[in-house]
């Protein structure tokens, strides 16, 4: 019998998200909205495309990769079979068993979002939004908190509608994703939601002394409500809210190198995400351009590759963030109160051109 606490451990060690006991029915109160990003006259479809491919980078989990590591654009948003696999010993650090796709345990797949009957073609707009905002699957089951609905819950209605508008334009791909294995299946079948949305009031505000409050607030929205920076750069928690809400943006979440797609022996087995606050253990001393390069090009202060596949490389989603959005995100990170959290050693890859 797998306990809920074990679930939390599984999820934490799978380094995707946390969940835990005392899970409550999520709060249906309307999301508090900060300043949404300026949209420069985009149509809803264009805005949705930008969010799903670049800001929230939904494509990172929902589009399969080619064997050569590039994204399979013929299957854009068609779902990934066994996106995450964890071994039966729950993937705890030091667990001897490597994930085995044939062990009947631990595989969770991402859904087919395309405009096909095996995707979301027959789902209503309301059903689609209820999935990515509230964690309620179209078939009435619950999403596991691998899907960060607890963050996306806080996006604006306009952005949520833009996402739906874009999903309706996705080229249909026939792909029935396989059912999830345990422990995920139990979460899917539970009567309660797998996680509670983050209260947007708990997301740090820019320090009062920061000069461009408007830019920082736009960055706050991009990093935490429609984008997912806050997810990986905050320590996870075994709680109803699967992030440590007292340590937002302080880094220290742990990923195994396999989870980041890093195979070379030169990478450490466990990689800590970086403290993004302007502390000496964080981004103090980084120039604005260096921060922007780290986000969009995966290039750290030393000119080396950061270890997250979301930044840089052939699948980098953030490379196409607009410069105004990159500036706003950088402003927000620079506006955070410094917090001490030494996440060293930094994981460094090869030099980035």
């Amino acid at each position: 019998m797998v306990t809920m606490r074990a679930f939390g451990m599984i999820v934490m060690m799978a380094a995707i998200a946390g969940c835990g006991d005392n899970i409550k029915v999520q709060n249906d109160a309307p999301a508090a909205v900060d300043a949404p990003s300026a949209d420069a006259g985009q149509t809803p479809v264009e805005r949705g495309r930008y969010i799903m491919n670049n800001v929230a980078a939904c494509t990172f989990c929902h589009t399969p990769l080619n064997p050569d590591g590039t994204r399979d654009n013929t299957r854009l948003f068609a779902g990934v079979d066994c996106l995450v696999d964890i071994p039966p010993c729950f993937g705890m650090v030091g667990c001897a068993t490597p994930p085995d796709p044939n062990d009947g345990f631990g595989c969770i797949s991402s859904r087919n979002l395309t405009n096909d009957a095996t995707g979301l073609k027959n789902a209503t707009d309301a059903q689609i939004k209820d999935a990515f905002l509230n964690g309620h699957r179209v078939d009435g089951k619950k999403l596991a908190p691998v899907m960060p609905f607890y963050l996306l819950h806080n996006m604006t209605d306009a952005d949520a509608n833009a996402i739906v508008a874009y999903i309706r334009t996705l080229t249909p791909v026939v792909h029935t994703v396989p059912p999830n294995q345990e422990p995920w299946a139990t979460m899917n079948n539970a009567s309660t939601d797998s996680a509670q949305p983050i209260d947007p009031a708990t997301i740090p505000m820019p320090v009062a002394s920061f000069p461009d409050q408007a830019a920082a607030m736009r960055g706050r929205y991009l990093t935490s409500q429609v984008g997912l920076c806050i997810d990986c750069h905050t320590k996870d928690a075994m709680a109803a809210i699967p992030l440590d809400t007292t340590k937002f943006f302080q880094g220290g979440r742990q990923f195994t190198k396999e989870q980041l797609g890093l195979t070379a022996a030169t990478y450490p087995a466990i990689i800590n995400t970086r403290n993004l606050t302007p502390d000496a253990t964080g981004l103090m001393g980084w120039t604005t351009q260096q921060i922007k390069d780290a986000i969009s090009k995966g290039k750290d202060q030393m000119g080396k590759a950061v270890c997250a596949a979301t930044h840089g490389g052939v699948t980098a989603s953030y490379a196409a963030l607009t410069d105004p959005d990159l500036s706003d995100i950088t402003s927000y990170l620079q506006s955070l109160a410094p917090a001490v959290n030494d996440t060293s050693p930094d994981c460094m890859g090869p030099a980035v051109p």
Partner: protein
Amino acid sequence: MGVFACACTAEPPDPSLALLATHAGVGTPGPDTSNKYWNVPAAAALGKRFYFDTDFSGVETAADILLQPMTTPGRAAAGARIKVSCNSCHDVTMGGSDHTSDPGNRVSFGAGAYDVNGEQTINAAFADIIYWNGRNDTLWSQIVAVVESHVSVNGSRLRVAWRIADAYRAEYEALFPEYPLPPQLDSIAAQKARLASDGTCLLVAGACPTDTCTNTTGTCLPRFPLEGRPGFVVPGQLATCDRSATDSLLQPYQDAYDCMDLTDQLAVTRIYVNFAKAIEAYEFTLVSKNALFDQWADADFKPGLLGASPERGAKLFVGKAACAECHKGPEFSDWDFHNIGVPQVGAYVPTTTQCHAGDYAMGKCDCTTDDRFAPTNCLPIGARDGLRKLQANKFRRDSVWSDDTDCQNHYSLHTDPNYTAENPTQCDGRIKYYTKTLDDSLRGAWRTPSLRDVALTAPYMHDGMYATLRDQMVHYNKGGIVPDQGGEVNGTIDAKIKVLNLTDAELDDLVAFLQTLTGEVDPAATTPPTVPADSPF
């Protein structure tokens, strides 16, 4: 003594006749689950017109398969239209084979020089795996490859889409109602009126007209340029839009396709795949049957019907010469790969020494790097290269372009040898190739061709090194070792290839037998169709 031996009991049946009977009677090819139009008459009719249409072809590249300049004249002056159709090099009245190439060069010429001789399209629908090296698992994916090949048709998927919109709209839309032509594909004349001489869109009231054009790249470009195909990309790298790219074989049409929005790329590729599927449907009607050999078999191998020499040849074929070891069944092929010791020989036939480490990054070939998912185009090693390409092929039966939804649904499991072994019938049985171990037995191995109509398909072997059936028979008689021809033999010759010790007369008998395999194709399938006048590209 002689009298004693006969008349009392019937002679024991000749065992070779039972073996020959296994070759009799050509069936009906199919089904092809990956192409739901494979047996739709309207698809075959439209595909036939495509097959005979020269307006899909591009210009002479005067380059060989390794992008080197050709040293002999090609079909046309470099840069001039080659005006070929499928039928130009796969003549359906001549075994579906190439009768146009320069015999001195043995290989086939399209817009440039191939590294191999063209294969037959007649009876190709029976094949389990396509092309000399097995790089494709459907005829339609083979068509997708050759129509954009710089040594073959040198066309482009955008040209195909515009040609269809311009000249075949009604037929296309009737056949493929699920895939309507995008409204931007109205007519070539209308599109040309929208474009400046450099291919960019004319502005309308000072703005980029966003219905037919796109500003995504910062330049106002047509959503559907008149020509364009994917540029060359090294596996593991991203296709990028480079408007400054010089028009070249690696980045043709100044990167026009790569600069399109993804959705439009997928739409135009869908039209291109449908074009190929219609041609495949036509190729399913190209069946050669009722050869003299079949008539002989129907007559229970009545002595004398075939003629003395061919009948002796037939028995040698299944006996001493052991041809039937690989040339099995009614198709006279096991559709498998064998190294029979044919060297890479000829001006345009590459050797491994021409394929250096790092050359692939320049679009050439590399026989030193060996990565299953990043095929480096080591052409000289045959199936060892072709099946590696199949294992990374993006137009496979399990791709989004296929109609085999079961195969497509399980694509992510097609790298797992346990899964493919447990599901041998999935993907019309082609699943076995997806995880086939790429060992050295495939090095220098090429797919066994059918011998139906073989008398019409000279020259012989993958690189066309033998001009006549008699010459290639000598090759087998010597046990596959041909030191006098030069060239490079790769890998290890199959143990089935042995010195045969056939006499000259026996070789003649075998050739005489092979000449009885020429069949008949339904004239309705081979009569040239009417083809629309060229479009105003």
